[in-house]
């Protein structure tokens, strides 16, 4: 947004300068015309700038948790109907499956978690002040994955995945953006 604003400001400045220049060249009588022309250009430009801004949110789809195997963090792979027109089922499936696998890895009871627990006990939990827990490390990995997926797959299709941790690992929020280019505001 800052970038766009800056651009806009630059353009405004530019047109003002240009109009001043034209005025100088053509004489004061033409000031209004040139100003008007340039203003309309600016307007046109601003209009196109607006188009470049983030499109409006059309709707949000929530992928719920799959509790069939207990309270482990797992999301439903059911393909939401609202995304049918925007996304292939396989891609969505793949994303959700990868997320599920990552969360399973985060919650895995294994050697690493034992060690971490013992270390924490021994140091009277002061270790948490310096070290990142295993879960937090995987969460960072998940955040990177989601960012990557958004950039590569979802944003080009007018969708945006929200990291479920922001929703308390209850839902995966998929924001559907309005598609103004096709005109049927889907």
């Amino acid at each position, binding site marked *: 947004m800052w970038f766009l604003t800056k651009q806009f400001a630059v353009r405004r400045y530019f047109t003002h300068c240009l109009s001043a220049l034209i005025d100088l060249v053509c004489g004061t009588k033409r000031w209004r015309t040139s100003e008007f022309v340039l203003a309309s250009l600016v307007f046109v430009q601003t209009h196109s700038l607006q*188009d470049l801004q983030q499109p409006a949110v059309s709707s949000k789809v929530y992928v719920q948790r799959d*509790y069939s195997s207990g309270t482990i963090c797992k999301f439903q792979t059911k393909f939401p*109907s609202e995304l049918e027109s925007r996304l292939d*089922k396989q891609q969505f499936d793949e994303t959700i499956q990868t997320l599920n696998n990552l969360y399973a890895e985060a919650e895995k009871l294994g050697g690493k978690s034992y060690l*971490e627990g013992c270390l924490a006990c021994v140091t009277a939990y002061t270790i948490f002040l310096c070290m990142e*827990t295993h879960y937090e490390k995987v969460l960072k990995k998940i955040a990177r994955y989601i960012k990557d997926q958004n950039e590569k797959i979802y944003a*080009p299709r007018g969708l945006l995945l929200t990291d479920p941790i922001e929703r308390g*690992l209850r839902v995966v929020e998929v924001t559907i953006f309005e598609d103004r280019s096709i005109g049927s505001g889907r």
Partner: protein
Amino acid sequence: MPNSAGKRFKPTKYIPVSTAATLLVGSTTLFFVFTCPWLTKVISPAVPLYNGLVFLFVLANFSMATFMDPGIYPRADEDEDKDDDFRAPLYKNVEIKGIQVRMKWCATCHFYRPPRCSHCSVCDNCVEDFDHHCPWVNNCIGRRNYRYFFLFLLSLSVHMVGVFSFGLIFVLHHKEKLGGLHTIVTLVVMGIAGLFFIPVMGLTGFHMVLVARGRTTNEQVTGKFRGGVNPFTKGCCGNVEYVLCSPLAPRYVLDPRTKPHIKIQAPFIRPDLSDKQITIKVSDNGIHSTIINSKSKGSIDGLDSKESQPPLPPKAERYNQLKSQLTSSEGENCSHLTPPHFTPDRHHHQFISAFAPENSAILEEGVRGHDYRSEPNLDLPEYANAPLHRTFQSSPHQLDSDPVNSRSLSLKQGPRRPGKGQLQALPPQTVASTPYKGVFSPNTHSNRNGSLSYDSLLNPSISPASANECIAHRGVPSMGFHSPYLPTKMCHIRETEVHRQQIAQTYSPVMPPRGVGRQSPHFRDREPSPVRYDNLSQTIMASIQERKEMEEREKRQMLHGRSHTHIYAQDSGMFDGGYGLPNNACFSDGPRGPGSRGPTPPAYGGSRDNLIGVGLVSYGQRTPVLRHAGSTLGRAPRTSSTSLHTDHSSTNSSQSRAPGHEGPYRSPAHQPHSPAVARSPSYSHQKLSYISAHERTDSPRLGGPRYES
């Protein structure tokens, strides 16, 4: 005190924790100062060391239990909550390892509480794996800090045992100097330890049992799994391992951090629709026909959820508008079926979409019937030639306005087409673009609230015209068609009916003779007599019945995993019951078919019972006021269905649908919904359809007014 008022400083809640902390630290300090020096001298320096370590452990766990976030869920976003307002049920069932677990709606946090989550009234937060709120640490004990609490209890017990026993040794060796300061202090410390020994040890033992059984205090105290199976248990060892060794769960209430900015810019890539199998679930009067293409079976799920999309109120307006037009043009015979402003493409989409093989039989009939019509649908050949594949956008408006548009289609294509002009007066563009837009977004939001009933309510009156189109296109190879809206709840079956109706020149296309079955061939003579209508159905009804049952079975399977939509579907199904057949929207519903004839009603009733049985468990309004309505509602469908049946039988004979029947149909379903404003439009629709049916009695009709809309 409400959250919005801010958290007032309540000193009283800090009393237990202060007391506990004071006692713990104070007593132990006294022990170390007065008792330990002698013990060090006499026994060994290991004594204070050991006690020191244990005390450190106790303190650490106490601090962690006190200050650690137990697993608080942040409040849900408004957007997430949008669909779950008063219309949604209080409970949602979810199956965990084969056991049904109930998720309750949290009115404060605005989401359905995950399993094992509970809302703490003291902290005013929903806590994950809520154990209890401990006043001694002034914190909830939940998933994240249960381990520390348990270890605190264990270590405190050990510490108390140690302090008491070393104190006893000291006192026993200083029996002669009982009046001495050290002895008195030691006695006091022993007294405190002894006093709290029983409660602390008791609590420790209690939690040891809980950990072994894999239960939380909340579950134990509320008796959730009393006599039942605990789906969360992993076996004794597994449970202990889970409590002590699982990784530390993350915090959900995070500090706002800058999210990576992802640039989203149109134009957007769209999936290639021609490759995908587009499946549309077409629901008819209780007949759920799922057109399933072999390739994308998965889309059925999508369809399921789509089916639950209710029609939007704006559609109702249009419907009314069209309806009024239609009624005004009543009396004119016009067999021209072309919808004035719909492009062939749209029709094509709408109707071809969901032709499942099983529906083909019926469709065929419809097609045939169509052919038989005296005045051919001039536009049909055009449709036939229309390209099979359409972009999604082209059909949307039709789909959207789905219940309404389809109806409007029918209205427009109604036999009385004098109105052609009138109908055409409706700006196609507005129908096309605006409704779509307006309808689409809200629709997606309302998807979850299965006001399926509304949809189906609107559907019934849908269009004979659409049916015609449908039939018309039948000849064309069906293609997968995906419509987000399940608009077509207007199942093509109805279409065939409508078709027939049109042929027979019924005057109120609004109410297609549902039970009539699609026996278009019979209608070519345009006979209004209901008797003919009855004759038609037998074979067709049987096939419809079969199909419905199959789909029902299929739906039931899918329903199991489904939480949200499932409940909503059932919910709407219940309401639908009040209205009778039409609402196919609820897939879990039994054969709602046009149960006109004998075999259907019992089946209908039976399925309805199933629906009630399943749905009632989960059903319950979130607003407590309506809680009772749930039970009422549960009962309502039964009465409505019976009345429905009677209506069916009566309509066979009488050609008028007594308005009186409307009352019983509507009232039961209506009660609980009174607070739900959103439902009113559909109710009005129904009323209109009823009215139209009634009006129809004046003119020769094709079939009995059996359309319950």
